[in-house]
């Protein structure tokens, strides 16, 4: 790529560069190791699990992955920017609860609830980010606090408002249909039903990738995660970038919350606990550095796909459910080892 410099100098090869195959160059990208891991796991299940071979199964796996993957994209950006958000899992539920309860209690059009919920979600993200940058407390701790608080609020507010731990069915409220079309519809392609979340997922990954690699903000995200003091010193608005990232996570949490609401009509207030973890796992399996400054949105998507595939593949294969977590762990560890091995090889031979 650096060969495009248009100097009149002869394009002679620098004698200080060894040869490096195109394959090795490709494999050295952050997400490629994860991709190979995903392919291997896919092949394994393709061989051992007959039902897994069908297109409908792939569609189910992709759907499952997309519900993790959408938030995982934002979590990956945040991680590249050097921060965590442990409240992401319950924030999904919070969004769904707010939209559902608002529209139901005020008998408002569903879209009003959706917008109110968006505002609330962005506010949560802003508070997370603001606390992190202003107090300089590690985001792990700040969002742990908000995680607990949201978890409590979800339950307490729901019980307060509905007298129950789940919201009422909102499928009769005006605007439900159109909102469902946007957030939770499905359509059939060649006999296989595809969930709309898959398309949204692809869109979010594409946008995130473009932002990361082709915009100024993307440059800043890598920079604040790679070294916040250096970034500040050269004039990157570190605080604004970080707050923005927290709000991006909130935004995709809100989106996933809307999907949950419109796919299932009601929301249980206890849901979402533990998912923050899966998002982080997806990002890290996909090649993001836990310490920030390195990673990709596509990688996080592949990580989510690996996780979803392992989770459902074990079921498709009909393996002993008692061993479920053992297999899940072994598959993840295997994928990561493979990922690392490939990256190592690619780097050595590049």
């Amino acid at each position, binding site marked *: 790529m*650096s060969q495009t410099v*248009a*100097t009149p100098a002869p394009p002679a090869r620098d004698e200080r560069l060894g040869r490096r195959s195109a394959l090795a160059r490709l494999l050295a990208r952050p997400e490629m190791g994860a991709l190979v891991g995903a392919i291997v796991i896919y092949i394994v299940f393709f061989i051992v699990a007959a039902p897994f071979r069908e297109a409908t199964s792939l569609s189910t796996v992709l759907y499952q992955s997309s519900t993790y993957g959408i938030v995982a994209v934002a979590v990956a950006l945040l991680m590249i920017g050097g921060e965590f958000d442990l409240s992401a899992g319950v924030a999904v539920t919070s969004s769904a609860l707010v939209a559902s309860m608002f529209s139901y209690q005020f008998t408002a059009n569903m879209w009003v609830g959706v917008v109110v919920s968006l505002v609330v979600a962005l506010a949560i993200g802003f508070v997370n980010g603001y606390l992190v940058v202003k107090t300089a407390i590690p985001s792990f701790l700040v969002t742990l606090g908000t995680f607990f608080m949201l978890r409590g609020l979800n339950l307490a507010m729901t019980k307060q408002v509905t007298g129950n731990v789940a919201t009422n069915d909102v499928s009769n409220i005006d605007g439900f249909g159109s909102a469902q079309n946007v957030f939770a519809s499905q359509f059939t392609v060649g006999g296989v039903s595809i969930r709309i979340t898959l398309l949204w997922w692809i869109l979010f990954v594409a946008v995130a990738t473009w932002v990361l690699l*082709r915009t*100024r903000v993307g440059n800043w995200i890598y920079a604040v995660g790679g070294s916040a003091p250096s970034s500040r*010193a*050269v004039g990157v608005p570190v605080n604004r970038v970080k707050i923005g990232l927290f709000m991006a996570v909130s935004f995709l949490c809100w989106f996933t919350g809307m999907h949950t609401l419109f796919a299932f009509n009601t929301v249980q207030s206890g849901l979402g606990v533990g998912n923050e973890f899966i998002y982080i796992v997806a990002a890290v399996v996909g090649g993001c550095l836990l310490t920030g*400054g*390195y990673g990709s949105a596509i990688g996080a998507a592949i990580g989510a796909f690996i996780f979803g595939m392992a989770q459902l593949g074990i079921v498709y294969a009909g393996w002993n459910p008692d061993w479920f977590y053992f297999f899940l762990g072994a598959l993840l560890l295997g994928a990561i080892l493979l990922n690392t091995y490939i990256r190592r090889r690619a780097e050595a031979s590049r």
Partner: protein
Amino acid sequence: MTTTTEAPAKTPLVRLTACDKSYGNIIALGGISLEVDAGEVTCVLGDNGAGKSTLIKIIAGLHKPSHGSYEVDGVPVTFDSPREALERGIATVYQDLAVVPLMPVWRNFFLGNEVRKRLGPVRRLDIDFMRKTTKKELLDMGIDLRDVDQPIGTLSGGERQCVAISRAVYFGAKVLILDEPTAALGVKQSGVVLKYIVQARERGLGVIFITHNPHHAYPVGDRFLLLKRGKAIGYYSKDEITRDELTAQMAGGAELDELHHELQRGGKAAAEAAHVLEEEVQELGITHEPTAGS
């Protein structure tokens, strides 16, 4: 008001008055004043730990002075972040370089000053331009990079320093601050940096130049601020001080001399060291008589 041909009192680009700075209970700087005029090179000299970097971090907006005032173009300022200083055209090469190790060289070069082109309603990075410019600017410093996409953390110490310098030179608009820019540089690269400093002065920039090398400082400097243990021990314009006096002051002449004598009294090894040291001392132009202070 009528026909005085006297030039109006020039406002300096940057003026610090009686600035203090402490880190917790550690007092790094006490009561420093400094002026930087357009088209002038101010050298800040001093021992290790004298407070030079702390001083320029205040000017660059990285720290706020604990006391004292800071004016830019005659207007008092308090910078909350280096971004504000950069926006006023103050570009800095930090001693720790302030690069992001995992990022490619060209992204580091343009970090915070990204060049973009419109693409319909959105603006995207002009990656081609930035790559080429980085490659070219570094070539001008005598650094022929294999690959501008290499993470900057994998460059050699001197190469990294060259990136930081050429970045500051490229973006510096009004004031250019260089904290030991030549520390890790080869002879040729050092020459280029000196050339840059002179060019910047010619273009009317104010330059603050920190170095431990009097051979580098004296030829290009117009004023010299000498620091010791956080205090100013001298502030001269070029015509007030000779090169020898300057070097003597920098080296803490008297002390170095004493070290030399002490070694001569020692055994064989010490004597040889003394010999080397003597050479060193002579090179620095220190006469064996205690130098006269200014």
